[in-house]
C-alpha cells in the first residue's frame, strides 16, 4: 500500500513527502494492550518474590488483587476505562478452562479416588445446602423494611446465593498449598471446589430462568433435578470420551513428537467447548478429560513432550490466574457500585454461618463411612477454607439485566470475594498452625513404603474376597484388571503394564545416578580402577574413546528445521552433566577437564565391566556375558523409559534451572562414601542381574552397585530424599512454582 502511495505521489506533483516514520496504533491496539496487561501482571508477580516474607503470610491472590486495586485507582483518576477485554465471555471461554485444566491435570489421583464419595457429597449436597440456606435467609432479611431491599423476591435471592456459594478453586488452592495440610483435607477441599461447578451451573441456570417467570411450579423443581443429573453426568461423559480419544490419538504420534502437547490442549479445550455448547458442566468435562487423559498420554508421549505439557499448562494457568485476580482489583474500582450496608453485611454473615453449619452437619453424616474420619480441627479447616473467587465474580457479571438490583448483587459479590480472600486467606495459615490441624507427612517416597502399601492393598483385597465383601479394594482391583487387559492395549502404544513399584524404583535409581555424577569425588574412580587388571583398563579406555565420540556425534544430528533432535534421555543427562562439569572446571586447563570427563564416563561404564568381569567368573552361559560385549552400545540406543516425574524435573532442571533444583542439588554435594563391593555373599549374582535389568538406562547402572554394598551408598539417602522430595514428588504437592 505504501508503495502505491509513493508511486502516486511521484505521478502527481510530489506535494507530499515520503513519510519516513509512521505510526499505526489502531492496527495493533488490541494485542498490544493484552500483552501489556499480561506483562504488568507478571511484573507484579516478580515483584512479590523480591521480598520473601510477604508471600509467606499473604497469599498471592491478595497481593494481586491489591495491585489491581491500585492500578484501578490510577485508571479511575485519569478517567480511563478498563480494557474491554474482561467480558465474561473472555473469562469463561479463555481464562477459566486453563485454570481448571491445570487443577485437573495435577490432581493426585490416588487420594482423589479414595475420597471420591466425600468429595461428591460435599460438592453436591454442600453447595445445595449453602445456596438454599443463604437464599432463604437473605429473603427473610429482605422482608425487614429498614434495609430498603424489599423489592428483591425469592427467586432473585436464590439466584444471588447460588452465585456466592460457589467455592472457588483458584483462591483456595493458592492458600492451601502453602499451608500443607493433611492430604485428606486438601483433596476434599480441592475436589469440592472443582466439582461444585456442576451444581452451581444448574442452580444458576435454573434460578435465572425462574427469576423471569412469574410463578414457579413443582414440576419445574423436578426438571431442575433432572437437569442436574444431565449436567453433571453429561459433563463427565464428555470428559471421559474426549480423554480416551486423546489417549488414542497420542498412540500414533511417535513420528510427530513436536506437536504432541498440542493434542492434549486441543482435546481438553474441545471437551470444554462442546460441553459449553450443550450447556452442561464444562468444568467437569475438562477435569474428567484431564484425569482420563493424563494416565495414558504420559505413557505414550516422549519425555520432552511430557515436560512441555506440564510446563505449558502451569504457565498458562498461572497467567490466567494472575490476570483474573488483577482484573478483579481493577474492576472493583471502576464499576459503579450500589452499596447497601444491611444486605451486604448480612450476606457476609450468612455465607460464613451457613458454610460452617453445612460442613458440620455433612461431616457428621459422612464420617461413619470414612476410614479416616474428620475431626473437629479438620472440619474447621474445611469450613474456613471456603473462599470465594473468580467464578462468582464472573457469574455476577453475567447476571441478566432484567434483574433490577444487578448492581447491588455485583457489589455484594465483590465484597464477599474480597472479604474471604483477604481476611480468610491471610488468617488461615496462622490459624491452622495454631489449632494444629494434621499436617501431611511428605517423607513417604521410599521403596519400602510403596511395597508395603501395595502389599496391604492386596492383603485387604484378599481378605475381603474371603469374606465376600465388595468394597473399594475390590473395585479398584477389578478396574485395574480391566485397565490392563483392555484399555491399555488400545490406548497405549507400548503396553507393558508397569507396576508403580517398578516406576518408583527406576526413579530412585536415576536419582542416585544423578547424584553420583554430581559429586566430583576422585575416590570412587580410584577404588574401582584398583580392581582391574591392566588389560581390562586398556579395553576400557579404548571403548571409552570410541564411544565418547559417538555420543557427541549424535547430538548434532538434527534432521531438519522442524524436527527435534533424537531423544535419548541418558545422553541428555550425560551431555548436561558434561556441560556443568565443564563449567565448574573452567579455570583449570583443558587437559584436566577432559580427564574429568573421562573419569565420569568411566564411573558409569565401569559398572558394566565390573559386572562383566564377575559374570564371566560365574556363569558364562548367561546371556549377560553376551550383553557385556556391547554394553556401551546400549548407551547410545536407549529407549525411553516411561515417564517418571524425576526425569521431567531433572532434565528441565539441569537445562533451564526453572524448578528448584539448585538448592537440592547443591545440598546433595556430599562426598559419597566409598562403595566397596562387600560381603553380601549370595548377592554377587545380583550385581549381574541388576545390569541385565537396566538395559535401557546406562546412567542407572551407577546406581546398581549400591544394593551390593549394604550401607554407605544409601546412608546419605534419607536426608537427601527429604531435601529432594519437593522436587521429585508429583507436582501436586509442590507449592505452586510461579
Amino acid at each position: 500500500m505504501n508503495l502505491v502511495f509513493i508511486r502516486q505521489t511521484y505521478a502527481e506533483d510530489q506535494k507530499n513527502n515520503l513519510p519516513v516514520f509512521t505510526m499505526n496504533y489502531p492496527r495493533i491496539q488490541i494485542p498490544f494492550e493484552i500483552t501489556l496487561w499480561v506483562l504488568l501482571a507478571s511484573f507484579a508477580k516478580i515483584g512479590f518474590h523480591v521480598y520473601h516474607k510477604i508471600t509467606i503470610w499473604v497469599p498471592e491472590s491478595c497481593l494481586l488483587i491489591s495491585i489491581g486495586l491500585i492500578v484501578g485507582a490510577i485508571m479511575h483518576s485519569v478517567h480511563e476505562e478498563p480494557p474491554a477485554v474482561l467480558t465474561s465471555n473472555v473469562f469463561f471461554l479463555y481464562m477459566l478452562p486453563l485454570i481448571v485444566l491445570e487443577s485437573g491435570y495435577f490432581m493426585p489421583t490416588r487420594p482423589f479416588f479414595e475420597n471420591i464419595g466425600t468429595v461428591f457429597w460435599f460438592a453436591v449436597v454442600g453447595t445445595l445446602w449453602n445456596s438454599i440456606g443463604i437464599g432463604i435467609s437473605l429473603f427473610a432479611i429482605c422482608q425487614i423494611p429498614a434495609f430498603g431491599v424489599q423489592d428483591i423476591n425469592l427467586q432473585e435471592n436464590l439466584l444471588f446465593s447460588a452465585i456466592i456459594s460457589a467455592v472457588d478453586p483458584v483462591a483456595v488452592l493458592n492458600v492451601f498449598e502453602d499451608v500443607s495440610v493433611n492430604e485428606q483435607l486438601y483433596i476434599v477441599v480441592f475436589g469440592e471446589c472443582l466439582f461444585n461447578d456442576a451444581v452451581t451451573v444448574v442452580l444458576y441456570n435454573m434460578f435465572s430462568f425462574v427469576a423471569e417467570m412469574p410463578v414457579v411450579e413443582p414440576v419445574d423443581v423436578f426438571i431442575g433435578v433432572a437437569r442436574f443429573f444431565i449436567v453433571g453426568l453429561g459433563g463427565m461423559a464428555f470428559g471421559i470420551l474426549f480423554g480416551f480419544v486423546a489417549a488414542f490419538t497420542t498412540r500414533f504420534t511417535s513420528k510427530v513428537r513436536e506437536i504432541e502437547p498440542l493434542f492434549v490442549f486441543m482435546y481438553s479445550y474441545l471437551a470444554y467447548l462442546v460441553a459449553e455448547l450443550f450447556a452442561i458442566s464444562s468444568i467437569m468435562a475438562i477435569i474428567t478429560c484431564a484425569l482420563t487423559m493424563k494416565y495414558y498420554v504420559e505413557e505414550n508421549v516422549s519425555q520432552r513432550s511430557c515436560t512441555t505439557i506440564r510446563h505449558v499448562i502451569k504457565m498458562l494457568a498461572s497467567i490466567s490466574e494472575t490476570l483474573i485476580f488483577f482484573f478483579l482489583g481493577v474492576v472493583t474500582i471502576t464499576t459503579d457500585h450500589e452499596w447497601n450496608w444491611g444486605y451486604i453485611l448480612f450476606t457476609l454473615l450468612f455465607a460464613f454461618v451457613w458454610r460452617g453449619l453445612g460442613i458440620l452437619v455433612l461431616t457428621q453424616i459422612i464420617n461413619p463411612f470414612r476410614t479416616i474420619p474428620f475431626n473437629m480441627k479438620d472440619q474447621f479447616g474445611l469450613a474456613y477454607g471456603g473462599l470465594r473467587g473468580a467464578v462468582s465474580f464472573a457469574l455476577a457479571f453475567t447476571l441478566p439485566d432484567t434483574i433490577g438490583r444487578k448492581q447491588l448483587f455485583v457489589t455484594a459479590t465483590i465484597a464477599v470475594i474480597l472479604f474471604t480472600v483477604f481476611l480468610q486467606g491471610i488468617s488461615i495459615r496462622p490459624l491452622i498452625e495454631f489449632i494444629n490441624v494434621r499436617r501431611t507427612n511428605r517423607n513417604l517416597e521410599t521403596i519400602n513404603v510403596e511395597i508395603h502399601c501395595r502389599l496391604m492393598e492386596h492383603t485387604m483385597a484378599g481378605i475381603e474376597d474371603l469374606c465376600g465383601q465388595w468394597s473399594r479394594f475390590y473395585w479398584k482391583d477389578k478396574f485395574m484388571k480391566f485397565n490392563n487387559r483392555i484399555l491399555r492395549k488400545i490406548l497405549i502404544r507400548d503396553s507393558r503394564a508397569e507396576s508403580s513399584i517398578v516406576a518408583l524404583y527406576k526413579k530412585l535409581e536415576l536419582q542416585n545416578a544423578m547424584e553420583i555424577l554430581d559429586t566430583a569425588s576422585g575416590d570412587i574412580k580410584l577404588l574401582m580402577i584398583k580392581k582391574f587388571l591392566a588389560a581390562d583398563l586398556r579395553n576400557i579406555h579404548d571403548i571409552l574413546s570410541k564411544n565418547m565420540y559417538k555420543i557427541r556425534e549424535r547430538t548434532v544430528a538434527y534432521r531438519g528445521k522442524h524436527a527435534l533432535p533424537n531423544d535419548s534421555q541418558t545422553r541428555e543427562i550425560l551431555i548436561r552433566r558434561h556441560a556443568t562439569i565443564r563449567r565448574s572446571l573452567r579455570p583449570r586447563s583443558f587437559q584436566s577437564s577432559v580427564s574429568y570427563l573421562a573419569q565420569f564416563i568411566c564411573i558409569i561404564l565401569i559398572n558394566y565391566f565390573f559386572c562383566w568381569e564377575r559374570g564371566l567368573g560365574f556363569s558364562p552361559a548367561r546371556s549377560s556375558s553376551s550383553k557385556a560385549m556391547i554394553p556401551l552400545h546400549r548407551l547410545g540406543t536407549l529407549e525411553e523409559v516411561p515417564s517418571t516425574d524425576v526425569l521431567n524435573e531433572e532434565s528441565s532442571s539441569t537445562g533451564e534451572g526453572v524448578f528448584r533444583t539448585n538448592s537440592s542439588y547443591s545440598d546433595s554435594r556430599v562426598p559419597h562414601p566409598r562403595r566397596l563391593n562387600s560381603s553380601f555373599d549370595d548377592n554377587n549374582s545380583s550385581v549381574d542381574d541388576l545390569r541385565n535389568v537396566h538395559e535401557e538406562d546406562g546412567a542407572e547402572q551407577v546406581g546398581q552397585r549400591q544394593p551390593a554394598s549394604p550401607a554407605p551408598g544409601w546412608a546419605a539417602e534419607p536426608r537427601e530424599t527429604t531435601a529432594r522430595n519437593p522436587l521429585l514428588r508429583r507436582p501436586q504437592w509442590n507449592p505452586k512454582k510461579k
Partner: protein
Amino acid sequence: MGASQTRPEHNYDDLTDKSGCNRDDLDRIPALNNNPIRKQIITAFFDKRNQHQNDVGSLDEIGFEQFLMVMSHFRPVNSTATEEEKVTVRKQKLRFLFNMHDTDNDGIITLDEYRTVVEELLSQSGAIETEVARSIADAAMLEVASTNVPHMAPDDFYEGITFEHFEQILKGIEMESRMSIRFLDMNTATMRCGKLSS
C-alpha cells in the same frame, strides 16, 4: 451379590460341619485367584503366630475361632481408643504383615524372603523379569539398612529386617486406617443359619 453372600456361608458351614477348614478350602475361593499374594494370605490364616499366642509353626486346619482370631487383626481402630491402645493395635497389624514375610519364623526378614515377596507382588504386572524384582528387593533392603543402621562399616553384613526396623520404616503410614475392614453389610441373618460351634 448372591455369590458373595453364600461365600461366607460356605466358609462358616465348612467350619461348622467339619472340624475345621484347611488350605484347600480357602484355595478354592475363586476370587482369590487374581490376587498376587494369595499364597501368603492363605498361609497367614494357618500361621500359629497370628493366633495371639506365643506359638510358632503352622496349623493344618483352623476352626472358626482361629479364623476370627486372624480376622481380628483387621479390626478398625475405635476412635475413642487411648494412645496406648492405638499403639498396641498398630503393633498387632504390623506384626501380621511381618509374619507374612517371615516364613521361616526366625524373627528376621532376610533378603531371600523379601525377594520372594516382591516377586510375588510384581508377578501380576506383566512382563517383569525376576531380575527387576530382585534388584528392587535389594534396593529396598538397602533402604532399610541405611535408615536403621546408618553407620555400617563397608564390610558389615546386614542380617535382615527385625521387627523394630520394620516398624521404623513404616513409621509414616497410617496403618490403622488402611488395614481395617468395616463389616458394614454383613448380613447377620446369613450368619446365624448353620450351627455355629462355640
